């Protein structure tokens, strides 16, 4: 008898905890969403109002008005997409070589790729600034894209290596015996089997690029100002435009939230793969 009651109580506690988690993790975003529909006055009201008269003024201003972040969304889109494409183009073959092929200095190159992830961005931005300035690539799409590669590439290689390592060695052997040759083996036999991994890695690389701030703020400018930097448009010494900031942030984060929701299974799988398998088997 008590067993059943105890079980009920336990279930209740568990659900409470789950509800709390949900609240803690989802609430700030939901609150931001709510705020984006309030007037500035409503935002500052205490006690905070949940029921209020919603307004689209903030969004209007943020999309069409003087503080439009549309150009910033465009910048983010161009740079992130270009960086992602280039990264995958370089990273996938490199990861295959690291994971499956034998060549001199293999361990060394593995360590090298890993080590490049350890460099603090803070230390690299000055040289980047000077070089980009020197070749006239400051505040340009090319410049920013090129620099985004520096943190995307090692990360993508590292992730893809673990996906490649999951394929049994016999795959290449069978394909070679079938006279496929190295390149065709990679293309017809190996790559189709890591399609999932490529998808996950692409998602992660894109997310990282979209969310990048430090490089964007230092190496971008007036022409190329990704959305992460544009957030500060709404904050100045005198005042903060709370509601507009909320609307702007919602817009800025809409793509990544959408990707997160749609691809959540992939993302979770990717996190686990990277965490449990990656980095150690060299």
């Amino acid at each position, binding site marked *: 008898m008590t067993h059943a009651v105890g079980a009920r109580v336990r279930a209740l506690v568990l659900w409470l905890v789950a509800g709390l988690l949900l609240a*803690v993790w989802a609430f*700030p975003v939901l609150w*931001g969403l709510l705020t984006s529909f309030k007037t500035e006055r409503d935002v500052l*009201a205490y006690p905070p109002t949940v029921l209020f008269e919603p307004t689209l003024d903030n969004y209007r201003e943020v999309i069409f008005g003087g503080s439009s972040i549309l150009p910033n969304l465009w910048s983010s889109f161009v740079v992130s997409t270009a960086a992602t494409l280039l990264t995958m183009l370089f990273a996938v073959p490199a990861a295959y*070589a690291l994971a499956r092929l034998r060549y001199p200095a293999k361990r060394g190159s593995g360590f090298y790729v890993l080590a490049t992830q*350890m460099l*603090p961005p803070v*230390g690299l931005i*000055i040289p980047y600034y000077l070089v980009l300035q020197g070749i006239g690539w400051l505040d340009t799409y090319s410049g920013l894209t090129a620099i985004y590669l520096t943190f995307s590439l090692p990360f993508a290689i590292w992730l893809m290596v673990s996906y490649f390592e999951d394929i049994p060695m016999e795959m290449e052997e069978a394909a070679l015996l079938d006279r496929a040759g190295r390149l065709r083996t990679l293309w017809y036999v190996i790559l189709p089997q890591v399609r999932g991994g490529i998808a996950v890695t692409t998602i992660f690389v894109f997310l990282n690029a979209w969310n990048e701030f430090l490089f964007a703020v230092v190496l971008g400018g007036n022409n190329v100002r990704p959305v992460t930097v544009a957030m500060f448009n709404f904050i100045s010494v005198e005042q903060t435009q709370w509601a507009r900031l909320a609307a702007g942030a919602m817009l800025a984060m809409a793509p990544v939230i959408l990707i997160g929701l749609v691809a959540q299974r992939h993302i979770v799988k990717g996190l686990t793969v990277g965490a449990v398998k990656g980095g150690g088997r060299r």
Partner: protein
Amino acid sequence: MQLKREPAARSARPIRTLASQERRFALALLVPALLVLLLTTTTPLVYLVWNSLHRLDLGMPWLSGFAGLENYTRMGSDPRFWNSLWLTVVYTGSTVVLQVLIGLSLALLVLQIPRGQGVLRVAAILPIVLAPVVVGLFWRTLVLAPDFGLVDVASRALGMGSHNWLGDPQLALISVIAIHTWQWTPFAFLVLLATLATLPPDVYEAARLDRAGAWQRFFHITLPLIRPAIVMVVILRMMTALSAFAAIFAATGGGPGSATEILNLYAYRTSFTELNLGYGASLAVVLMAITLAISFLMFRLRRAR
């Protein structure tokens, strides 16, 4: 297909062994990426180290020149440096520990309500996909703002009064730690949940038959089995904490004063706000050395099983 009798000596065809062809192919695949990396990481690195050996202050340009290890020795007696080092240790240590503890506990709890897991996974994804700078701004404006921020409202309702969560030096550090933990605990949660779900049930059944209680099962079976996952989570989270920048920058800018100025931010401020590039470079080098050392240690730890 006709086959000629070839003499036992070397045939006229060039010898293409399996190994040499593989080598050429491998290098062809790898070299583009390595070149990019070389250009974009090693060359700036050399430049950085070079800078750190110079006196290079844009605010006092007449002092520029080679300085040897002067920047590094100066660090030793720089209280702000030691402060930033201490803050880095506290920040990294507490966020990682909190993430693992909370993440693991939550994973263990949620494991037992399979129906709720789907919704929770979605909720967990949200903090992770957001840009850290946006998270910092969110918390600064909507959560921690005095008067109408969520936390302040709650604390007032609980009778603890209103506080300047980001303006008070003590509270500021706690606040940024909370922000970081909030954003990244879901990572530990998701990874550990997935790992726990893959544990073989028969080991537990055997343990039950051997009369092991819940705590014993946890310590002797669960913990050792998920140890690799925990170690990897710790390594990854440490790397993130050491290089954390955007969230703190957005929330406090490193202040008030130097209350949340971890080494990362100290280097940034020195280089960009105070324009002392030489010293800033040396700070960055020290940060890099620490990061490399820790990751080296952690990977060793991971291998020594």
